């Protein structure tokens, strides 16, 4: 049994989180391997209590996750380990990789030195796609590796008239087989027993032998025959050629004209519901932070003699105003994450990849590139990591350059704020329009790059497994929503406290007027002076006011911090009245009217589009550097800033004429 865990790369993101509690030193290592979308990550979460991002589509896992699995066994050699280290590997159809995530799985299972391989591999196979799932098992069975087969989705298979006999499958494969339902957390104890038995077995030997003289094609044919024999022995069908509910639904949602319309309607519905339902909750939370919380903080600081000090101003004008304003968006973010999780868990997003395939191909990308781009609408950082699922390096570079144009959830907070100030009756429509602009930018920038730098780039074929539709489970959708919300708040919280502190510090330093440190009008501060240096660059788009410019500067670091720093520049005390154009709203309106010579609407649209198109955050740059190198990362920054500025200027100049 190995003492050391293999050196496994992990991925950082602002939404995935998901790391479980580490297992004790020296614990046995159990790896979950299997084809894409068989439920490995759901099983990993069920066993380890971790919170990996999961979705009902192929390729959700693009990096390795680790966690401790408390097996429920008594421990010791007789009973089996009480705790093992669980490793969730990216999905792979076989050990012959076509993409980096599959290569990672091969490296850990096959290329690693024997003492660094997992002690047991749990091959997760789907009862719905048994033949397809077992090819990897055939290859693993040729290795000297302890192996347990876990069969998932037997309930879905049963609805399709297919039943899998685990004992017959075990006999046919020569391997232990366990039936599981990780979505309902059933079968974990049986799996723990099987893993314990397997660990107690003597040194593993290959279950299958391969003729050393056979070439690759012969070896593959031999595996397919082995798989076919096992499937024939272990499965029975009721013989009814049924059109499933999934087929009936797909007749509509993947249809040539209706499919794209349904996709747009689904996205529109998500943003309408999000903004309308969350609005009253937002206002209530805003009142809470600006009222009781601020008053309590002022009272507490007064008791300790800091009632009229810079500390009090930092706490009320900085921390409470900034952090409080962000927290008012929690209901909105939670609702959007929940709706997207429901769409994912239902299996719809795989269909969305099908209906957008032609558009993807026009910009030189395979249909599968839609998946990382959709992830980008949550957060750009994991989306760039998700480009691992693309086999072609040039497709990965192009996709990584386009991801920043997908409108992440952090930008959503600014859209809602600005739209509720300027377009209070059409907030949902404005937000939806921004997402349409985002999609259009991905397509247009992709077309532009395809016709200049990547003229010879060939498109990749679409061969996409469509998972059966399933009723989303409350637990799974709630978990995914919580994982993403927690990730957002964790990242945003840290960034906002840091940004609020830096912004407040810059605002505390006087560069003109008669103020002193901590007691100077913000317009006389170092912060305003810095923003005024850059503001003229935005004069052609007519949002060259220093308040808006400073928000954009902070937004380069992180969009999560835009609204907090923006409210700081106005020392807004009452962000709750945004929808009634309260203190901050009135001030922002006045500044836009002034900088645009009365063409506020045109300037606001220009500002929103600039905010959408320029660099999302430094974390995205770090992710890009890791995936595509500095040269392409800086190229991308240049493209983003150029596109954002040119579009903003064009929108204002055209908008000024028609408004």
């Amino acid at each position: 049994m190995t003492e050391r865990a293999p050196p496994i790369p992990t991925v950082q993101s602002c939404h995935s989180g998901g790391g479980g509690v580490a297992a004790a030193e020296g614990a046995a290592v159990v790896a979950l391997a299997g084809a894409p979308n068989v439920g490995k990550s759901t099983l990993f979460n069920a066993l380890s209590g971790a919170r990996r991002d999961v979705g009902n589509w192929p390729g959700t896992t693009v990096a390795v996750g680790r966690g401790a699995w408390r097996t429920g066994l008594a421990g010791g050699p007789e009973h089996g380990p009480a705790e093992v280290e669980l490793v969730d590997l990216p999905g792979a159809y076989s050990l012959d990789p076509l993409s980096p995530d599959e290569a990672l799985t091969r490296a850990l299972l096959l290329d690693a030195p024997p003492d660094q391989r997992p002690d047991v591999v749990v091959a997760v196979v789907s009862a719905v796609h048994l033949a397809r799932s077992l090819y990897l098992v055939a290859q693993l069975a040729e290795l000297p590796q302890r192996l347990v087969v876990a069969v998932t989705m037997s309930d879905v298979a049963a609805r399709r008239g297919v039943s899998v006999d685990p004992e017959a499958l075990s006999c046919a494969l020569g391997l232990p087989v366990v039936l599981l339902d990780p979505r309902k957390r059933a079968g974990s104890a049986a799996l723990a027993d099987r893993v314990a038995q397997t660990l107690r077995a003597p040194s593993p030997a290959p279950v299958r032998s391969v003729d050393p003289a056979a070439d690759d094609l012969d070896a593959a044919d031999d595996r397919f025959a082995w798989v076919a024999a096992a499937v024939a022995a272990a499965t029975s069908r009721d013989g009814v050629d049924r059109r499933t509910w999934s087929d009936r639904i797909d007749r509509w949602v993947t249809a040539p004209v209706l499919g794209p319309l349904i996709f747009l309607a689904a996205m529109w519905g998500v943003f309408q519901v999000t903004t309308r339902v969350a609005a009253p909750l937002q206002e209530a939370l805003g009142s809470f932070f600006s009222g009781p919380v601020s008053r309590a903080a002022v009272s507490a600081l007064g008791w300790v003699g800091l009632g009229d000090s810079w500390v009090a101003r930092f706490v009320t004008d900085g921390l409470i105003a900034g952090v409080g304003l962000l927290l008012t968006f929690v209901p909105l973010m939670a609702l959007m994450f929940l709706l997207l999780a429901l769409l994912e868990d239902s299996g719809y997003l795989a269909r969305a990849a099908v209906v957008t395939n032609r558009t993807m191909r026009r910009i030189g990308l395979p249909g599968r590139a839609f998946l990382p781009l959709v992830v980008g609408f949550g957060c750009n950082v994991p989306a760039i990591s998700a480009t691992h699922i693309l086999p072609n390096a040039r497709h990965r570079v192009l996709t990584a350059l386009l991801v920043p144009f997908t409108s992440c959830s952090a930008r959503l907070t600014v859209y809602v704020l600005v739209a509720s100030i300027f377009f209070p009756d059409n907030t949902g429509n404005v937000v939806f329009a921004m997402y349409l602009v985002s999609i259009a930018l991905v397509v247009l920038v992709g077309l532009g790059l395809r016709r200049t730098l990547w003229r010879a780039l060939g498109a990749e074929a679409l061969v996409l497994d469509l998972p059966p539709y399933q009723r989303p489970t409350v637990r799974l959708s709630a978990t995914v929503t919580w994982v993403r919300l927690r990730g957002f708040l964790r990242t945003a919280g840290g960034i906002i406290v840091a940004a609020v502190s830096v912004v407040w510090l810059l605002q505390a330093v006087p560069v003109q007027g008669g103020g002193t440190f901590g007691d100077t009008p913000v317009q006389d501060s170092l912060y305003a002076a810095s923003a005024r240096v850059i503001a003229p660059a935005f004069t052609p788009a007519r949002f060259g006011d220093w308040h808006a410019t400073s928000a954009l500067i902070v937004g380069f670091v992180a969009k999560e911090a835009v609204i907090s720093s923006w409210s700081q520049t106005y020392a807004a005390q009452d962000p709750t009245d945004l929808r009634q154009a309260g203190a901050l709203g009135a001030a922002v309106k006045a500044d836009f009217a002034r900088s645009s010579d009365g063409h506020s609407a045109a300037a606001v649209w220009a500002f929103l589009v600039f905010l959408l198109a320029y660099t999302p955050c430094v974390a995205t740059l770090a992710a890009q550097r890791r995936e595509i190198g500095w040269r392409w990362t800086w190229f991308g920054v240049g493209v983003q800033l150029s596109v954002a500025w040119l579009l903003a200027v064009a929108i204002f100049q055209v908008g000024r004429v028609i408004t």
Partner: protein
Amino acid sequence: MTLIWSGYAGRVARPQTLADVPLGEQVTLGAPDVDPSWARRLAELGLRPGAVVTVLLRTAGGGRVIGLTEDRIALDRWTLRRLLLAKGEPTVSDPGAGSSP
């Protein structure tokens, strides 16, 4: 296409690739016209010579959803054109009732 497939009673040209197969028909695949690594991946997904598939749905962008036992796989037009049908032994679910696409 010049060959006439008797299964369609002379009404339509014999399909040579999956792209030519009408909706609802069941056919047997031959060797795909793609490079070896892609052929291996198709085989891993079950799309290998001898596999019997049903063309189920037309999708946006000119693709199809096919049924392979219980699996549903979306294919684009490029791939459909490279999935050749088995020679000599075309099978259809109901040869006399073959319908035009």
